[in-house]
């Protein structure tokens, strides 16, 4: 039972991560459409923010793995 609950918990965490990174990507696309010259900087910032959000989601995966 703990195994299934852990898997469900990991799945929930991934929903949050998908949502967050999707929002970051969407905002980045809007910004790049508004100002194409800044596309490089925006892309870098997007990648950094995505890595941080993914880090948080992977905390939850690690806790699920331990359980």
């Amino acid at each position, binding site marked *: 039972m703990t195994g299934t609950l852990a898997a469900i918990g990991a799945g929930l965490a991934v929903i949050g991560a998908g949502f967050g990174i999707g929002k970051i990507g969407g905002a980045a696309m809007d910004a790049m459409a508004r100002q194409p010259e800044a596309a490089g900087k925006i892309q870098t910032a997007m*990648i*950094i923010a995505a*890595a*941080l959000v*993914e*880090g948080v989601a*992977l*905390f939850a*995966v*690690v806790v699920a793995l*331990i359980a």
Partner: protein
Amino acid sequence: MRIAPQFLRSILLFGLIVFSFQATFAQEIEEESGKFDPKELINGHVWDAHEFHIADWNGHPITLGLPVILWTDNGLTTFSSTRFQHDNSGEVVVEENGNKFVRYKEHIFYADKFDKEKFEETSTLARPFMYEDRPLDFSITKAVFSMFLTVVILLLIFGFSARHYKKNKRAPRGLAGFIEPLILFVRNDIAIPNIGENKYQKYMPLLLTIFFFIWVNNLIGLIPFFPFSGNVTGNIIFTMIMALFVFIVTIFSGNKYYWGHILNPPVPAPLKVLMIPIEIVGMFTKPFALMVRLFANITAGHIIILSLVGLIFIFESAMVSPVSILFVLFMSVLELLVAALQAYVFTLLAALFIGQAVEEAH
């Protein structure tokens, strides 16, 4: 310096071919039980081990036995891990230097003090630490071997690049020309914006080491054949030590403004009671996040690739292989990106924390 397109194309082709061979190296199906256990495949690849499992030949595992180095009551004891004869269930007893040892799930115990139920009852987090029953284990394990390999690779690459600068004054070509933009990237985009123009030079060796060490270790974990397949950055103790180094550097380079902000934040008194514990806890959670982020990203990537390859064996059908290998190829390319990205994020956050520590008052 421009890299020739043909060179890039052949590197890409080579990389794709290497990664599509992931499936052929997953030969650890246990014929005894008959049923393929994906958990065993994953655990065999992700956890550390005392020997390097290279392949299976006719059901017989071929391994490279790495040296076991133990600090026991009788002093330093070393022997080859082949003396355990691939046993991980505490049955084979190795006698050396007056002590008897058994190995259970890659933990080495004194033979007379080993108790299976006690081991199974201790939590996973406490298991490495049962020191009344175990000698101190300083063995060269798979992860240590891979780390040494990374060190050799980095020394070779940077040694050859440095030689170029000693010999001539012109812009570098070749290996040094490949490395120079990377080093300049770390300096201009990671170190200077975060630490500042006047103070970044002291921290450049640390940041460069962190960046390239983590990157090469990530890449080594992705290549599926010996001598490269050791999983170093997916080992939480390794990432813990890296985060610990960053933590120590920030503590020791903190100036009075840094400690002032933590212990006496410029907020009204009622808020100060709340902020000071938060800031102190924040001091510890930042390196903790560094540790978990790198560990989880890399381990998750390895588990995904191993599971996709294991799909072929779960379905026991060759029809699954084209789909599975295509997925594995795609995930491997993504993992290449993650390898570089995680190295970049770790270095960036390390530079950020150091920058916060040495920041002057505004």
